């Protein structure tokens, strides 16, 4: 990992993003104070409509800010020419690609656009950058294939390769994990984290993958709808309650103890859960799905999970003798009958 540079790559002061149409400006988010540092992976999180895409598009210079200052590499973004801006910032968008005959390598070569002359001819250095981008993203193997024949996961990696070939200190990605299956989402996040560390680039991505973002991000920008942006390491944001607050209006409760959103509202009695390890974790999830409230405090209903390596669950109602169950399914069946009809 290269030593961190003393200056942030991207700064925003009192930035208000939104849309201006017919003299009426419609702010979406702001005022925001932001900074992106070299070598960090930042995840932009927030509910739908909070302005994540608008913010990314504004940072990339695709739309003007309503007010505030944007600085890139110590210069004002507004003062940069289009090619100079494109040498500082690259972006992966959610726009549909319809490029027919274009091969993967040709698409990645387009990333060299701001570095080439008026005819767009590539030098040996440009080709080396293209090859490096293909290698870094693991797309070199299908460089000769047409982009139209790629799977969603492959296409997303190729688009990332194009942004890398643009060779900018800052890389922005708008929902790169959308439309990907879980292994591809994990692989992409791991790749981005690795790239930020290896190349010293600042990588900012918006995503709805909260758990993945909490695991992979060096910092999180939390953008609640209409609220103020919170920036910090994911752990600090979770422990301070900012994370739970950002998503609270969606009617979901974030559980800081498990790092997940509660899917099931508790409706049943408390259950004392005895035991630990993977068995306890999954038993807890099963109990929550059934509406019970698992707890470690003593309760009239008690479930003991098997120790590691063993199987067999014990359930005990008040002072009655414990019952044994071979599987979670049997345990749940017994509990459904249990306390209601002794």
């Amino acid at each position, binding site marked *: 990992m290269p030593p961190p540079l003393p200056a942030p790559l991207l700064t925003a002061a009192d930035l208000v993003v939104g849309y201006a149409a017919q003299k009426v400006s419609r702010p979406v988010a702001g005022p925001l104070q932001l900074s992106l540092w070299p070598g960090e992976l930042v995840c932009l999180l927030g509910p739908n409509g909070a302005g994540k895409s608008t913010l990314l598009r504004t940072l*990339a210079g*695709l739309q003007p800010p309503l007010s505030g200052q944007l600085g890139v590499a110590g210069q004002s973004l507004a003062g940069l020419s289009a090619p100079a801006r494109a040498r500082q910032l690259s972006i992966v968008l959610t*726009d549909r690609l319809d490029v*027919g005959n274009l091969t993967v390598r040709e698409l990645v070569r387009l990333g060299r656009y*701001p570095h080439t002359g008026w005819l*767009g001819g590539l030098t040996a250095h440009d080709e080396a950058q293209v090859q490096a981008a293909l290698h870094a993203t693991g797309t070199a193997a299908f460089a000769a294939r047409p982009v139209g024949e790629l799977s969603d996961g492959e296409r997303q990696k190729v688009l990332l390769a194009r942004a890398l070939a643009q060779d900018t200190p800052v890389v922005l990605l708008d929902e790169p994990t959308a439309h990907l299956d879980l292994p591809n989402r994990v692989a992409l996040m791991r790749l981005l984290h690795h790239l930020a560390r290896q190349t010293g680039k600042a990588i900012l991505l918006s995503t709805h993958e909260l758990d993945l973002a909490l695991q992979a991000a060096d910092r999180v920008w939390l953008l609640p709808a209409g609220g103020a942006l919170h920036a910090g390491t994911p752990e600090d944001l979770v422990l301070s309650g900012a994370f739970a607050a950002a998503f609270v209006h969606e009617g979901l409760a974030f559980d800081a103890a498990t790092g997940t959103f509660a899917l099931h509202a508790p409706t049943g009695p408390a259950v004392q859960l005895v035991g630990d390890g993977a068995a306890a974790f999954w038993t807890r999830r099963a109990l929550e799905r059934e509406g019970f409230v698992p707890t470690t405090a003593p309760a009239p209903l008690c479930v003991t999970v098997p120790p590691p390596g063993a199987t067999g669950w014990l359930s005990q109602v008040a002072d009655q003798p414990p019952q044994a169950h071979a599987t979670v399914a049997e345990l749940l069946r017994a509990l459904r009958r249990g306390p209601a009809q002794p």
Partner: protein
Amino acid sequence: MRPDQLSPAPPAAGTDPRRPAWLLALTGLVLLGFVLDIALGPVRIPVAAVVKILLGQPTDNPAWTFIVREIRLPKALTALAVGSGLAVSGLQMQTLFRNPLAGPSVLGLTAGAGLGVAAVMLAGGGVANGFAIRALGLGGSWTLVLAATVGAALVMTLVLALSARVRDNVVLLIVGLMIASVTGAIVSLWQYFSAPEQIQEYLLWTFGSLGGVVGSHLAVLAAVVTVGLVLAFASAKPLNALLLGENYARSMGLVVGRSRTLIIASTSLLAGAITAFCGPIGFVGIAVPHLTRALLRTADHRLLLPAACLAGAALTLACDCVAQLPGSQTSLPLSVVTSLLGAPVVLWVVLRRQNIRSSLT
């Protein structure tokens, strides 16, 4: 990414080695079509004599020299300009609109040029009388070109202004068709209230013809098409960026507004001038780009633009050869031949290649 960590790039990986061969083959076809187009006609001239005359050597028949120099060479040169100009104009439109159905005629550009021509020809008497147009010489031809170009540019600007509001390509296409329809209706209305002899002149123009573009007219057409082609070739790099859509193009440092203006200017000059002199010639503009993409299997405009030039010229020359109806004194309207012959050829190539999907765009 540090360059010193890199493995060396494999030379020219991912490029098709057959592409230069295709360019050569297309050049050969253009030359063949050029000579054949001059040789064929009511008076058949041997190919050897044609080559001799073109190379400036004397032949045994002075009448042949006159026919070639004064009639057939200008016509063949016009075919070159028309074919390459329309093909390049169509290619630019398809990339700019990211729509495989875009072309000079479909989006109302030809209709706009037609309106310009109608305005000059039908605008009742005065300086720009329909009969006087061909006799007006350089001044008149500039008037005609200007009118057609302004007409085409007006329609193109309108379509583009609407394209900024309409994100859906299909909706935009419908908008273009409606504009073409309205423009056509205005011309019809104008014809309805015009004198029969004026209408006849306009109707003859709509059939499309490569003949009659001689002397100063040819110089004007060649000059305007050259300017249009130069502008188009200068747009090769922006066109490549626009393949990914406007947002990506802008993020890569393209000044989209300026490039768009350049592309519109080029397309309007090409389609406007060609339509002004030769009438609305359909099909070449929309089909040749597809043909070129299917043959070369590339989306790189630095390759597609010259290839489309060659393919458009070859196709137009071939169609003009057929329009001569060998052994007959009459010739068919060119726009009819291009559609009758060209469409099956393109269908055959695209279907045989089994890459219809990838050739569209």
